Structure formats: C-alpha cells, structure tokens
C-alpha cells in the first residue's frame, strides 16, 4: 500500500517553501489589503482585479509569465544577474511561485477582515494620540485577526500544494527544487503508485496537523 520514504528532501523543502511563502505573503498582503480596504481612489476596482489575477490564470501560465520575468533573459532576471543573483531553478523560485499564486488569497481574506473592523475603534485610538503604526498593530490587526488567520490557512495550504508555476520556474531537480507536489506528479507519471500514495499521505497528514493546530488555537482564542 505505502512505500518506504527514503528521501525526505521534498518534504523538508515543501515545508520550507510553504512557510517562507506564507510569511512573505503576509508581510506584503496585509499592507496592500489594508490600503485597499479603506482607501477610495480612481481605478481601485481595476487594481483589485489585477491583484486577483494570479488566481485566475492556470498556474502553468503564471509560471510561464514568471519565467519570462525572472528567467535568465527576463526583465528582472537580467537585473538580478548583474547583482550575481540567479533565481531560476533554485528553491527561491519555488518560493516566488507560491507567493504569487497564494497572494490573492491573503488579499481577499484580509481585505474583508479589515473592512469589518469598526473604524470608530481606530478613530478613538487616534484621538488618544496613538501613532498610525501603533493603531495598526494594537487595534486594527487584533480586531481583524480571525479573517487574517483564515487568509493564513488558505495561503499556507495553497503554497504547500502549488505545482504548475513551481515546476516552470524552479524546475524539477531532485534534491534541489523538487517539492512534494512535484514529486507526486512524477511518481504518478512513472507509475510508482505506492510512492505517490505515500507522498500524498505525508502532505495530507502534515497539512492536516498544521491547519488543525491553527484552527484549535483560533477556537481557543476566539473567546
């Protein structure tokens, strides 16, 4: 039924990629969603739609777009090459792919959460002389926390399962850029059904434990 898992590298790599991508998405996503939740300006609708786009495109197309962007001859790739940085075919490319693909999920969740925060709490804090940064971290963020947590779970899950874009920009180099979903894909293709099943079990159990733990934690802190 199951195969002995001798190579744990894909598992460790997947965890690393998913965690870093989640952190990056959070750091980038919160400011963006906060601004768009409150601000009103011309073209906001279009901008919002643009941010949601990586969700719409098939991941392989996102991967192709990234390849054109951060590949050796890509716009960004050339600039980075001059600085001595190569992203393509490294696990950092996997992080970037996961980040781009999962970003809209955090954005949508966090935006709804920020919108639901009663603006009067912030106003009250402002009249008490708190700085904007302080208000954000001590008032807005805690009040919006449940929604952000939902975004975190979605982001983490999506980053962990990301396949199409990762395959394109990070390649499928065993021991270097092969994450679990990639390993599963190639195990299935090679007819190694036991290995594929084992890897599916690993990724399912692992994500189950993490998400379960987050949910439990959230439930406990709800009251």
């Amino acid at each position: 039924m199951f195969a002995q898992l001798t190579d744990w590298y894909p598992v460790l790599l997947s965890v690393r990629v998913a965690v870093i991508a989640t952190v990056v998405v959070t750091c980038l996503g919160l400011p963006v969603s906060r601004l768009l939740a409150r601000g009103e300006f011309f073209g906001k609708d279009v901008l919002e739609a643009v941010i949601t786009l990586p969700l719409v495109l098939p991941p392989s197309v996102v991967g192709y777009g990234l390849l054109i962007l951060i590949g050796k001859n890509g716009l960004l790739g050339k600039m980075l090459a001059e600085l001595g940085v190569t992203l393509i075919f490294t696990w950092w490319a996997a992080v970037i792919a996961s980040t781009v693909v999962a970003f809209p999920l955090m954005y949508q969740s966090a935006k709804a959460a920020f919108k639901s925060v009663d603006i009067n709490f912030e106003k009250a804090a402002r009249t008490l002389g708190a700085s904007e940064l302080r208000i954000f971290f001590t008032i807005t963020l805690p009040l919006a926390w449940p929604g952000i947590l939902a975004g975190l779970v979605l982001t983490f899950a999506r980053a962990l399962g990301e396949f199409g874009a990762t395959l394109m920009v990070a390649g499928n180099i065993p021991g270097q850029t092969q994450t679990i979903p990639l390993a599963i894909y190639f195990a299935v293709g090679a007819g190694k059904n036991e290995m594929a099943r084992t890897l599916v079990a690993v990724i399912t159990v692992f994500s189950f434990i993490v998400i379960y733990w987050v949910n439990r934690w959230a439930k406990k802190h709800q009251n």
Partner: protein
Amino acid sequence: MLTTRINIFQGVFWLIFILITIFLVVLVGGLLFYGKWAAFVSVIHHPEFHFAVVFTLWTSLLATALAAVVAVPCGFILSRYSFPGKVLIDTLMDIPIVLPPLVSGIALLILFGPVLGDALARLGMDIVFSTRGVVVAQWFIATPFAIRTFKQAFDSIDPRMENVARTLGYSPAGVFVRVTVPLAKGGILGGLTMAWARALGEFGATAMLAGITRLKTETLSVAIFLNMSIGDIQFAMATAVIMLLVALLLMIAFKVFAGTGVRL
C-alpha cells in the same frame, strides 16, 4: 511629529502596495508583449476560442454557484454550531487546497469512475470525460475557498444582530436572508471571487476527470495547454491574456452589479 509618523507608516504601506502592483502588471505585461499582436487578432477570431470562452464562463459560473450552494450552509454551520469533531471537519474541508490538482483529479476519477460510475451511467449522468466532469472538477477545487471565507464572514457577525431581528419578528430563515447575508456580504463576495477565479483557472483536476477534448471539454486553461503542447506559445499566451481581460471585466461587472445600492 505626529504627521511625520503617519507619513512613514503610510509610506511603507504605499511602497509595498506600488511594488506589488508593478510586479503584477509586469508579470501580466510580459505575457502580453511576449506574444505578437497578430496572434491576438487571430485568437479573437478563432471559433475554438469562442467556444472556450463561452464554455469556461458557464462551467466556472455554474461551479461557483454550486460552490456557494454548498459553502453557505457549511460555512454557517461551522461558524455557528459547536459539535464534537468540529475542528477536525473544519480542517478536513481545507485539505483539497493542499492536494496537487493531479491528485484531486485522480481521486475524483476513482470516485466517479470505478465507485459511482455505473450508478451514474444508469441515471444518464456520466461525469468522466464529460462536460459535467469539468463542472465537478472546478467545483471541487473552488469549494474549500468559499467555505473558509464564508465561515469567516459569518464568524465576524455579532450574533446579537441576528437576535434583535428575531425579536423584531423575523423567522430564522428571514434573519439569515435579511440580516446575516447582508452583514456577511463583504466576505461572501470575496469568497465568491476567489472560488470563481480558482474555477476559471483550474486545469489539472479538470484535465484528469473530464479529459482534454477540443470543442468538448475545452476550457480556456485547456486551450492554453493544448496550444502550448503543440508549440504555439503565441496563441497560448494570447489566449491567456484575453482570458485575463475577460476575467477582469467580469470581476468588475460583478462588483458593480453586487455593489449597487448597498454601501458598507
């Protein structure tokens, strides 16, 4: 002093915001300009493209509607009721997001092939290699996003808001329609957008369950795959870009459509 602090804070936010926007615009722009303009024209006039657009729109919208039908009660129950194993089930509903689409596709293939295939065939409801399969696959991929966001949206409602409506004469169903849903509107819209976007771009599970058949189960994602696999990258990318534009228009239309008259 106060003003400078505000400026630094907002400056950082705006900086990140602008960088992300530029990044995404360049990403999409790369696809746009890597192709040739002639390709766009030929894509727009191609009957296969017309089929794929219409097919994708109705399958993805149907999948989203079905996802909403499932996610509204699921999200509501997960948000409002307490029962043993609730966190476990809550977690279970997120798992399809983690699974690589190929695995989801195989799982669906097993379910609707060997397990349920005969029964469904007797009902004339074949799923495997049919257009229904496309909807099923998209629905399966999109639903967890809707459930999670809907639950979150229901969570953020003060139950006393609903209590007041009960005392004002509304039945539980009336409260749900008149109070709960309007209050959760932001989250529900966000969830629907996510689910729809995900259904729109779904490829792996669809390809596995519904097969990749020109002019039959050809969604835009499938069209992109088909054109890429015969080396017609120009055509594929033009399709992708037009797909983006269609999605963009629909999203904005949806927002305007749903947003009229109600301001939160």
